[in-house]
């Protein structure tokens, strides 16, 4: 019973070539998050959507964008990937009034060549 699904699980892209990662959820949660997790580090929040409202973290580079066309889907676009963008990208969701629990997807590991 997959709840937060991320595709693909592994993505290889070339330096400077745009790439899109996708996330879908079957939980009907209002909030969807994108985290970047580099090797042996804590996840770092990039941005999140509360319904259709986009909330960007202050230190998220402009190179990272997101789209949420409907409740179920959310996309992470990296316009010009650099070598430093190689990481695991985690999608998570949470309900409106649920006290804090976030449900994570399995992640997409991005390699930049």
């Amino acid at each position, binding site marked *: 019973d997959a709840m937060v699904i991320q595709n693909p699980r592994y993505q290889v892209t070339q330096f400077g070539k745009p790439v899109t990662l996708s996330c879908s959820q079957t939980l009907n949660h209002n909030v969807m998050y994108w985290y970047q997790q580099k090797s042996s580090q804590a996840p770092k929040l990039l941005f999140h959507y509360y319904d259709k409202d986009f909330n960007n973290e202050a230190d998220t580079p402009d190179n990272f964008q997101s789209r949420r066309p409907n409740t179920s889907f959310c996309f992470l676009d990296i316009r010009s990937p650099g070598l430093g963008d190689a990481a695991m990208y985690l999608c998570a969701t949470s309900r409106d009034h649920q*006290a*804090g629990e*976030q449900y994570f997807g399995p992640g997409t590991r991005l390699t930049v060549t």
Partner: protein
Amino acid sequence: AQTVTQSQPEMSVQEAETVTLSCTYDTSENNYYLFWYKQPPSRQMILVIRQEAYKQQNATENRFSVNFQKAAKSFSLKISDSQLGDTAMYFCAFMKRRNSGGSNYKLTFGKGTLLTVNP
């Protein structure tokens, strides 16, 4: 800004024994939540246990329990009867309500503790 510190990058324990993972945090907030998340190798992150700051009673979930010391800003995780499947990275996380309205919550994670359970 909130910070979460996990001072033990790695720990190991023998199967069936008990282990405690430490976590401290810094905040000026009074109302917040604390979490322990588990991230097994190549698998997704899942919630282990949650503590609400206004509750004095320590949270427990089967073999997992916490020692929440609000004044000391400490939130340790005890795993009893450790099992091989407990091998994972464990993240302590803090959440306060954002000021931007709605129910937007932001998790602040510690750097994690890699726990290995040995047979």
